[in-house]
């Protein structure tokens, strides 16, 4: 049901039945290694191109999520997935393997929550009984497209972020047995915000206003206070974006505490890993939510969380043509039933 200007409330509380994540060697050395279902010690992952490895990551996350609840891909009515590569080929090619009716999404790094919001909406209104949604990114494949060759010795500024090699997938169902399971209760769809920043090595700074806009709209639409949530977690704002968003939220009068406000891009790596301002990429929020965060919810650490995935909607062409970076953020509220 539409609530407020841009939010949905899911009265039937779609269940996140199972979730899984896969990651690469750099994530295996990170903070959340224990929460990944599959970790690779090689970036190629037994494939002959990084793009194939990228697709492989998503397939593994999906298969792993299905196996956990003994479901097969034939049980899935729809699959919603996306990534950062041109024409989202890794996701579409994974959908070819899966043979599940498929929606290809592009919301840059906000794809994970765009997918979860739409999957919940479809399930909530009996458009499907079971859906699977996911997002992924592969450091080498994404850097190749957006930046320089991976082995090129260019110096990255301290504002830059490290693209996560990882995928996350979740099975969203209309299962009436919701006890002890995480359910999605509402979602806020963001609008595109552009504050005129044009430095592709400072995505956090560009995305912060979009994140703040969506979070403010969420609380306004649902007419709740930030204290409703145990945790408000952003997708990949990194150090600069997170600080900036925090200040913007306080300026708007939202009373969010520092501990309550975290970022997947800062959770995933250790402090001594050379990632400059933190992790980024479509797989960042997906692998952290569909691994660490939902595991924590299951353990009872958090009861209600708001996940806000942020995306920078630029292309290598648009920034070479000196265009600024338009950004977006989508939020989904997840609660333990």
């Amino acid at each position: 049901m539409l609530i407020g200007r841009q939010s949905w409330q899911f009265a039937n509380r779609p269940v996140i039945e199972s979730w899984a994540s896969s990651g690469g060697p750099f994530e295996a050395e990170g903070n959340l290694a224990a929460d990944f279902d599959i970790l690779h010690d090689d970036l190629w992952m037994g494939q002959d191109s990084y793009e194939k490895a990228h697709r492989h990551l998503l397939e593994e996350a999906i298969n792993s999520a299905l196996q956990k609840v003994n479901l097969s891909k034939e049980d899935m009515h729809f699959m919603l997935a996306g990534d950062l590569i041109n024409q989202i080929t890794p996701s579409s090619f994974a959908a070819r393997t899966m043979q599940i009716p498929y929606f290809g999404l592009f919301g840059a790094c906000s794809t994970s929550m765009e997918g979860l919001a739409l999957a919940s909406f479809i399930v909530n209104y009996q458009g499907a009984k079971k859906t699977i949604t996911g997002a992924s990114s592969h450091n080498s494949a994404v850097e190749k497209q957006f930046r320089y060759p991976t082995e090129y010795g260019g110096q990255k500024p301290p504002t830059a972020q490290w693209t996560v090699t990882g995928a996350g997938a979740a099975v969203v169902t209309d299962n009436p047995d919701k006890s002890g399971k995480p359910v999605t209760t509402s979602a806020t769809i963001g609008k595109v915000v552009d504050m005129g920043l044009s430095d592709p090595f400072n995505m956090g700074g560009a995305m912060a206003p979009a994140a703040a806009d969506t979070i403010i709209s969420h609380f306004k639409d649902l007419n709740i206070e930030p204290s409703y949530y145990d945790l408000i977690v952003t997708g990949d704002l990194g150090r600069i974006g997170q600080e900036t968003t925090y200040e913007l939220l306080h300026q708007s009068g939202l009373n969010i505490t520092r501990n309550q406000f975290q970022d997947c891009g800062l959770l995933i790596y250790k402090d001594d890993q050379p990632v400059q301002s933190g992790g980024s990429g479509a797989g960042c929020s997906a692998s952290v939510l569909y691994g660490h965060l939902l595991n924590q919810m299951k353990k009872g650490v958090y009861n209600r969380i708001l996940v806000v995935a942020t995306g920078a909607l630029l292309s290598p062409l648009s920034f070479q043509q000196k265009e600024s970076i338009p950004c977006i953020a989508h939020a989904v509220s997840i609660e333990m039933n």
Partner: protein
Amino acid sequence: MGDKKKQKLTPEQQQYQQLEQKHELKRPVVKNCIKAFLVGGTICLIGQAITYFYIYFFNFTEQTAGNPTVATMIFISMLLTGFGIYDHIGQFAGAGSAVPVTGFGNSVISAAIEHRTEGFVLGVGGNMFKLAGTVILFGVFSAFIVALVKTLLTMMGVL
């Protein structure tokens, strides 16, 4: 950011960018310069040692030792790029490892490695010079302009 660019921004955008600037991490310029000086200097020192090596052990003179030295430096750069070391040196040294000929080698070789999966013709051949090509183009063009100026000055009897 230039004033011209700033004028195009709305007041809201300007206000936000001021706020964002407070949180932005700045490049440590002085530290980067020192690191670039030291690493760049070390690379040149190695180059100089190789030049002497060719002069003392082979029949090269100071004028002719340049070519084999450059070839050797690029070969070393190629190995370091291929083994995934040069990008780490680059992150530490910045311009120190980008400006010498090894940096030029790295930009060609990294692009060649990157596009190997698209085949030899369209992948390696088509992309090898995507970073270095611009250096070659404007290098040759500036050399042409300098040569033209010198020729004209010589013809006019100034030089």
